[in-house]
C-alpha cells in the first residue's frame, strides 16, 4: 500500500529551477503555457469598444497653416505656407535636383587620380619610383611591402 501511494510534491516545488532540469522540452513548454495563462487571467481589462477621446480639432478637420501672406507682403511666410500646406496634404516633395558645381562623372575622374596623388605623399622613396613610372594617367598602387620570410628548415 505504501508503494502505491507516491509522495506528491507541491506545485511550487516543481516550479523551482533544479526540478526543471530533468524535464524534457515538451513538458517545459506546457508548464510555461499554463503559467502564462494564469498570469494573463489575473490582468484586468475593460470590455468596452475602443473609443479614444481626442479634444483637438486638428485631426477632425484638415486645416491650413495659420500664418498667411498674400501678394508678396512677407516672402518668408509665403515660403512657409507652401511648405506647411504641402506637408498637411502629404504630397510627395518634388525631387530636389540639387544644382551641383561639379558633375558626378567629373568627380569620379578626379577621384581616380586623387588616390594616386595622395598615395604618393605617404609612399616611401622606393615606392614613389613606381608612381612616376606610370604617370600617364592610370595609377598603379605600390607593391606590397616585402615582409621578412622565415627560413625553411
Amino acid at each position, binding site marked *: 500500500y505504501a508503494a502505491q501511494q507516491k509522495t506528491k510534491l507541491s506545485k511550487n516545488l516543481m516550479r523551482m529551477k533544479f526540478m526543471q532540469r530533468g524535464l524534457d522540452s515538451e513538458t517545459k513548454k506546457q508548464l510555461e503555457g499554463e503559467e502564462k495563462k494564469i498570469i494573463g487571467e489575473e490582468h484586468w481589462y475593460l470590455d*468596452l*469598444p*475602443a*473609443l*479614444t*477621446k*481626442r*479634444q*483637438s*480639432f*486638428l*485631426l*477632425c*478637420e*484638415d*486645416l*491650413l*497653416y*495659420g*500664418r*498667411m*501672406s*498674400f*501678394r*508678396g*507682403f*512677407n516672402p518668408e*511666410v509665403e515660403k*512657409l505656407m507652401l511648405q*506647411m500646406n504641402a506637408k498637411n496634404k502629404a504630397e510627395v516633395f518634388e525631387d530636389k535636383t540639387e544644382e551641383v558645381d561639379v558633375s558626378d562623372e567629373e568627380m569620379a575622374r578626379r577621384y581616380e587620380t586623387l588616390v594616386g596623388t595622395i598615395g604618393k605623399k605617404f609612399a616611401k622613396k622606393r615606392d614613389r619610383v613606381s608612381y612616376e613610372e606610370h604617370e600617364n594617367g592610370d595609377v598603379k598602387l605600390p607593391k606590397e611591402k616585402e615582409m621578412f620570410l622565415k627560413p625553411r628548415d
Partner: protein
Amino acid sequence: MAEVVAVAAESLAGSRARAARTVLNQVVLPGEELLLPEQEDAEGPGGGGERPLRLNAGARSRVRVVCGPGLRRCGDRLLVTKCGRLRHKEPGSGSGGGVYWVDSQQKRYVPVKGDHVIGIVTAKSGDIFKVDVGGSEPASLSYLAFEGATKRNRPNVQVGDLIYGQFVVANKDMEPEMVCIDSCGRANGMGVIGHDGLLFKVTLGLIRKLLAPDCEIIQEVGKLYPLEIVFGMNGRIWVKAKTIQQTLILANILEACEHMTTDQRKQIFSRLAES
C-alpha cells in the same frame, strides 16, 4: 431649422438612441446618445433590449473610433455634450473607424494640446514668460523654447509682444505650457509676431471656417492688396497691411463675414475692388 429641432426632441422623448450614421450633418443636442455602426444590429427595430446570443462573445469587431470635441463616451455609446452638427471623417490610412465630432460654436477658448495660438506676453519671471492665451490661466513659455535659444543667447521677447506658438501641455489639471518650436527644434513660423498690425478677436468657429482648405473668403481677401494674416485657434487674428486704413478694412471684413451671406460678401468685395 424648427423641424430639425422637433425631430431631435421627439427622439429624446422616445428615449431610443439613434444611430450616429443616420444623424450625420444634422443638429444634435446635449444629452443625446448615439449608437456606433457596429451596435445597430443588436438594437433592432422594437428591440426592447434583446440581444442575439453569440457563441464567440469575445470576437466582437473592435473598430477603433475616435470621439472628438463635443462627444463623450458613455458605456459603449457616444454621448453628445455640445449642441451643433454631427460630423464624421473616414479614416484615410485605413486604421481605425474614423472620427466623429460636433461642429459647435463658442467664443471662450479652452487650451488644447497641439493647437497653434496667438498669445500676449504679460509677465517675465526668471526663466519663463507668462502668456495670456484667452484661457482660464496664462500659459507658461520657457525662454529656451525658441529656435536657436541657449542659456547665453536669450530670445528678444518683451512684455506686450505677440507670440505665435503651440501647446505642449494643456489639460484641466495643469497650467498650460506652450513652445515656439516643433518637435525637431525648428521654428516653422512660430515665435514673436512682428510689430504693427492689429489683433482682434472672433469666434472659434469662424477661425475653423476661414482655415478650411476650400475657403473662398481667404482667396478673395488675398486678391485685394498685399497683406499678412496670422490665425490663432484661440479666436485671435492678427492682420497687417501697408497702410492703417487697409488694415482696418481687412479687420472689419473678417469680423463681419461670419454673418454675411455669399452674395452680400461678393457685393462688398466688388465695391472694395473698385475703390
